[in-house]
């Protein structure tokens, strides 16, 4: 038996090597330089320091963190509010309609997300189609400021990440036997009660993975935030980018990165905790 197991492990070897080389090693590098001092002109010196981490406690950066978490939380909740009902409709639809709905979710992946964000910019700009419509309908007298707002940034985040909420939710809902919900109704539960006591807890793993898949990337998707939000306020991904490439302070950028990884790690751990408790019985 043992030799066979060793051989199947080989199948994972290329990926493992890839991950080690291009994920684990760079992460280690980031971790190391986050404890070093920046050099006058470029790069790092070999002086160990905790200054980079101390600087994270600066109110400016605290604000970046809370702001980023806030945005990610709003994007996640909004995606859930839009995505879960959609996923439900998809999972309970007849095969033909389900295929059509699945296509709707998948089509965006056929073009680059950057292109699609440019599309949103055109839609939302001052003389764009949406404003033209609003003006024509007499809802506004002057073109409304839609682009370069927090709302536009949030919209872009939700738009970009929605499929990552829908797909895991869909999988969880589809796996749920509709008769279990029928049974709840049959035993006296109103539709809302049946949803809360049966459907929701039983699809929680899907909700949790969906939330993870939206929450975590939101912190880093700074191009969406820049293009639609006009770069006002700063999100973590943007600040890391700036520290690394513009401010030429790799150690501080690295410290920010480590903090971001720790934060997302904490969220994942929290999800594991919550997710594993009541629902691991499939």
């Amino acid at each position: 038996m043992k030799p066979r197991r060793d051989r199947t492990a080989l199948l994972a070897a290329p990926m493992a090597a890839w991950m080690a080389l291009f994920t684990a090693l760079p992460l280690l590098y980031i971790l190391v330089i986050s404890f070093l001092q920046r050099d006058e002109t470029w790069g790092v010196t070999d002086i160990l320091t905790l200054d980079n981490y101390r600087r994270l406690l600066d109110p400016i950066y605290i604000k970046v963190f809370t702001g980023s978490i806030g945005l990610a939380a709003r994007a996640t909740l909004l995606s859930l509010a839009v995505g879960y009902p959609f996923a439900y409709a998809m999972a309970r639809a007849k095969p033909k309609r389900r295929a059509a709905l699945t296509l709707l979710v998948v089509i965006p992946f056929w073009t680059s997300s950057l292109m699609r964000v440019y599309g949103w910019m055109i839609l939302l700009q001052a003389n764009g189609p949406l404003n033209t419509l609003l003006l024509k309908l007499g809802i506004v007298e002057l073109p409304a400021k839609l682009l370069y707002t927090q709302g536009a940034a949030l919209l872009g985040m939700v738009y970009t990440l929605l499929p990552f909420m829908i797909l895991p939710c869909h999988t969880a809902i589809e796996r749920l036997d509709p008769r279990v919900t029928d049974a709840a109704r049959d035993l006296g539960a109103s539709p809302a009660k049946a949803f809360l006591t049966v459907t929701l807890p039983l699809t929680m793993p899907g909700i949790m993975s969906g939330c993870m898949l939206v929450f975590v990337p939101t912190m880093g998707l700074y191009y969406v935030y820049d293009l639609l939000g006009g770069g006002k306020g700063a999100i973590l991904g943007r600040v890391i980018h700036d520290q690394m490439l513009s401010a030429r302070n790799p150690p501080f950028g690295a410290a920010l990165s480590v903090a971001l990884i720790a934060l997302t790690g904490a969220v994942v751990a929290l999800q594991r905790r919550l997710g594993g408790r009541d629902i691991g019985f499939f």
Partner: protein
Amino acid sequence: MGSGLLREGWDAAIPLLELFDIRKDFGEGDVLRGVSLTVEPGEFLTLLGPSGCGKTTLLRVIAGLETPEAGRVLLEGRDITALPPEKRGVNTVFQNYALFPHMNVQRNIAYGLRLRGEKRAAIREQVERMLRLVRLEGYGRRMPSQLSGGQRQRVAIARAVALKPALLLLDEPLGALDLQLRRAMQLELKRIQKDLGVAFVYVTHDQEEAINMSDRIAVMRAGRVEQLGTPEEIYERPATRFAARFIGQTNLIPAEVVEASGHGELTLRAAGVTVPACGGAAVGDKVSVCVRMERVRCGAARPDGFALRARLAETRYAGGFLRSTLEVEGGLTLEAIGQDALGSRVGEECFVWWDPALAPVVPAEDAA
């Protein structure tokens, strides 16, 4: 039929459940095309039919999980057609049980009681009583995934009867169990039904289950009730070829009525021979004579009265009994089953006969 105790205090004129001309069309072939029937308090009624005949859909209409396009559902004389399932006071044992996988056995059984807002102590007591009823004492804290199929089945029953419904609906509850367990559970279900005095509407495609357990059987085909009666009535007097074939093992001999006595005695012409049968038919009618396989008699000596010449073509062992194929004069083939070998050996000439009073006729063609 049913328990006399429970009927006391009932207005005898009001059946427990009445269905009037229920129609439902999914647009996918699974339809109900006008079903009417009644269920008496404490009765065990079985909806029997092949898959796709609409029996599960009918059950879901009674439960309120499907809305019929036409027709009315009355429970204890009250029109519940438009009521959602949670307001009907009817409970269901679902196919494959549909237990709540995230709740242990106790919480599964207590689910409906908790929704009703009953007191904690009362709930605990009722849960214990239900566990005793289905003989699962001590299993309260197990999760459904830790139970065997038969145990899950019992939990599903306990959960459904915990609310003390007057009517329990069961959708192929034994379908997922192996034969031996199924037989044991048949008796168990019957016991529970008697203990509680609750009426059962029981869906199955298993004729043996239907005959063993039911007070009455509704044989369903293609969205209609083909025949409604006691197991004995359906067995002895099938209304259609379909009903005759679906219950019991039967020979159906196409024939034409040549003589009708008026007392139900018939003489028919079939494939070049003349055979007797019974039933209501007029001279010239095209019918099928229904001769149950175990009622085909065979012997080397010609009996008094009706008999046909035949040759014993084949005898096969069929588990506890023998099944024989008889080639009858005129080109007819009959199947016979019996405990013992027929009085002849394979290849030998013999005589075949049956009791005409036990061979009813059914219309030659079933309605579409």
